[in-house]
């Protein structure tokens, strides 16, 4: 009996996806499209998959039994921005079940290669973002934003939690609207629709200025090579990097301080020069965890 073409709707989590695999084999259905939480209209029959941890575990065990490398690859590939991600992963898992793990040795395999390519793209972005993330200090709490193509936040988590283990910090992913919060050895990732950052304080502005100054002076004029710079640091990363933020931003933020010529102890959140509401996140960090 031929497998029936079906549209699967699941909750968008990795466990949910593994349950789709489970249901597909159970009901002998071939998923031709996957939908997340959004509404789906299709002429094909639609099956809503309910995420069940025990089913997910069972599928994961079956993958692990064939290859640990495949398990690692699948987890990473699930975070990528590859087109028709679920379908590619599904094809890969079917091949793994049918043939075993030998085809993983051949990186040009037509089923393996798309995943590999996507994961390489993810790894590249991850590697770059470890360096390109910029934090600002908001009254003792470090905060930063990123705009990645892939969902790198879960993978950046261990790097930054190790590095800033004795700090409190948050990192916001603008593309996928997720926030990573870390405080006292515990971290959490959860969806946040919008994040308004407060104006930087005086010390923060001073450090930004120092960094920009260093960044400008470290370049050797007679070796000027923008093509090389763009290759290593594509322009899409620069929107969240301190050294490329416009100067006016800080000048406006600090004007009152220089006029007063004294250290004003009050937090900068009281100033609404930029019409950004005061920070909702930093003070609430402790209570959120």
């Amino acid at each position: 009996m031929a497998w029936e073409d079906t549209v699967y709707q699941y909750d968008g989590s990795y466990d949910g996806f593994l349950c789709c695999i489970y249901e597909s084999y159970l009901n002998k259905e071939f998923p031709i499209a996957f939908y997340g939480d959004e509404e789906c209209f299709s002429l094909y029959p639609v099956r809503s998959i309910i995420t069940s941890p025990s089913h997910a575990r069972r599928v994961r065990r079956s993958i692990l039994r064939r290859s640990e490398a495949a398990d690692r690859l699948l987890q990473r590939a699930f975070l990528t921005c590859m087109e028709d991600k679920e379908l590619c992963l599904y094809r890969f898992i079917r091949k793994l079940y049918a043939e075993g793990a030998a085809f993983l040795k051949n990186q040009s395999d037509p089923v393996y290669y798309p995943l590999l390519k996507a994961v390489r793209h993810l790894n590249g972005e991850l590697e770059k973002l470890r360096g390109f993330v910029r934090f600002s200090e908001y009254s003792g709490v470090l905060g930063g934003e990123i705009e990645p193509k892939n969902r790198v936040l879960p993978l950046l988590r261990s790097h930054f939690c190790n590095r800033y283990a004795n700090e409190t910090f948050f990192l916001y992913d603008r593309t996928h609207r997720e926030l990573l919060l870390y405080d006292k050895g515990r971290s959490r990732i959860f969806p946040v629709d919008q994040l308004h950052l407060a104006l930087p304080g005086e010390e923060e502005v001073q450090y930004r200025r120092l960094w920009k100054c260093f960044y400008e002076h470290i370049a050797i004029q007679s070796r000027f090579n923008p093509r090389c710079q763009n290759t290593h640091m594509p322009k899409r990363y620069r929107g969240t990097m301190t050294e490329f933020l416009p100067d006016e931003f800080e000048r406006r933020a600090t004007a009152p301080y220089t006029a007063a010529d004294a250290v004003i102890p009050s937090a900068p959140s009281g100033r609404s020069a930029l019409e950004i509401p005061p920070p909702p996140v930093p003070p609430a960090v402790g209570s959120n965890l």
Partner: protein
Amino acid sequence: MDLLDKLAILSDAAKYDAACTSSGARRGFRAGMIGNTSSSIAGCCHSFSADGRCVTLLKVLMSNACIYDCKYCVNRRSNDTRRASFTPRELAELTIGFYRRNYIEGLFLSSGVLRDPDYTTEQMIRALRLLREEYRFNGYIHAKAIPGTSPELIYQLGLLADRLSVNVELPSEAGLRLLAPEKHRADIFRPMLQIRERHAESKAELVKYRHAPRFAPAGQSTQMIVGATGDSDRHILHLTESLYERYRLKRVFFSAYVPVTEHALLPSRDTKPPLLREHRLYQADWLLRFYGFRAEELLDEQQPDFDPLLDPKCNWALRHMEYFPVEVMTADYEMLLRVPGIGVTGARRIVSARRVSHLSFADLKKMGIVLKRAQFFILCCGKSRDGLRFSASTLLPQLVQIERGELPPEQAQQISLFDAG
């Protein structure tokens, strides 16, 4: 003078040093301390400056006042430039402030020579000690060992830093005598030898005692200026190879000479830095370190300098066409590495993939092999690439044409001028 001015002066003074790496030390988080060192093999780049070089460390001088008068250096005694010094506390606060914001991976500390090398090193040690012990900084530190410093002080410095480096400065003794009369070749190699021995001792001790002091866990590196003296590429490459072998260096950096002063002994002020030559030397450096090449294979008496038109690997392959074409299905790993367009990663992928399937040119492309170069030198299952036409006489121009597209426009122009001449 405020901190901003100081930072401007002292980063300006330090920027001609090429070394900027944060690899080689793996140190996880330690309770009560700030930060760790990069877990990746290649270190971590935090930004790229307008000249395309990676910014990973806060690269500054402790002070740019110097008693020496090396002709090629911006900080020489006779140069009329603004001088500044960081206090240890300023430096520590700057490093911590930058590190917490993820601007940098750590500190690169060098210094002009104040009074004498020992005094200068003492100042650096004081700054690093403050940073490590009072500010509890656990990130990466690269420190310069100044030639002529006493061994005790170098040892102290190595306990605080992750990587040490002693600059060779100029590739030959004659160059040193001419341009940096206060520096002696022996003074440069003595600390290098000491660092190598201490590093090996410390490693051996760590095997026995887990808490033995760590001396420069990321090893040592060096740099030399290319283009200030008349040394040939062959001389530089042989020196590089012997440095790797004799002193177990992790890296040798080449720095294209940027004219900072007008002097009868130096190239004139309007000469452009020899960037292409520096690039070729780095390519050859990679061939030495990862591809199993020897310096004498790449350059010899007849060809003492690299061809600006071709990269060293293509150049070698062209002169040894008797080895080619190689069959990718059967060639051993070492031979695959010698094919232009196949790198370490590509060669590994081929070796792994050919065990499960026959490889075609399309497969190789997917594995990240640079076919436009490799196609001339390989066969897949006994066949060469479809539609590929070349002969012994057209191969050189074809490869040159490919190479020209890879270089930045200015350097490609340099080549076309060369062509015309």
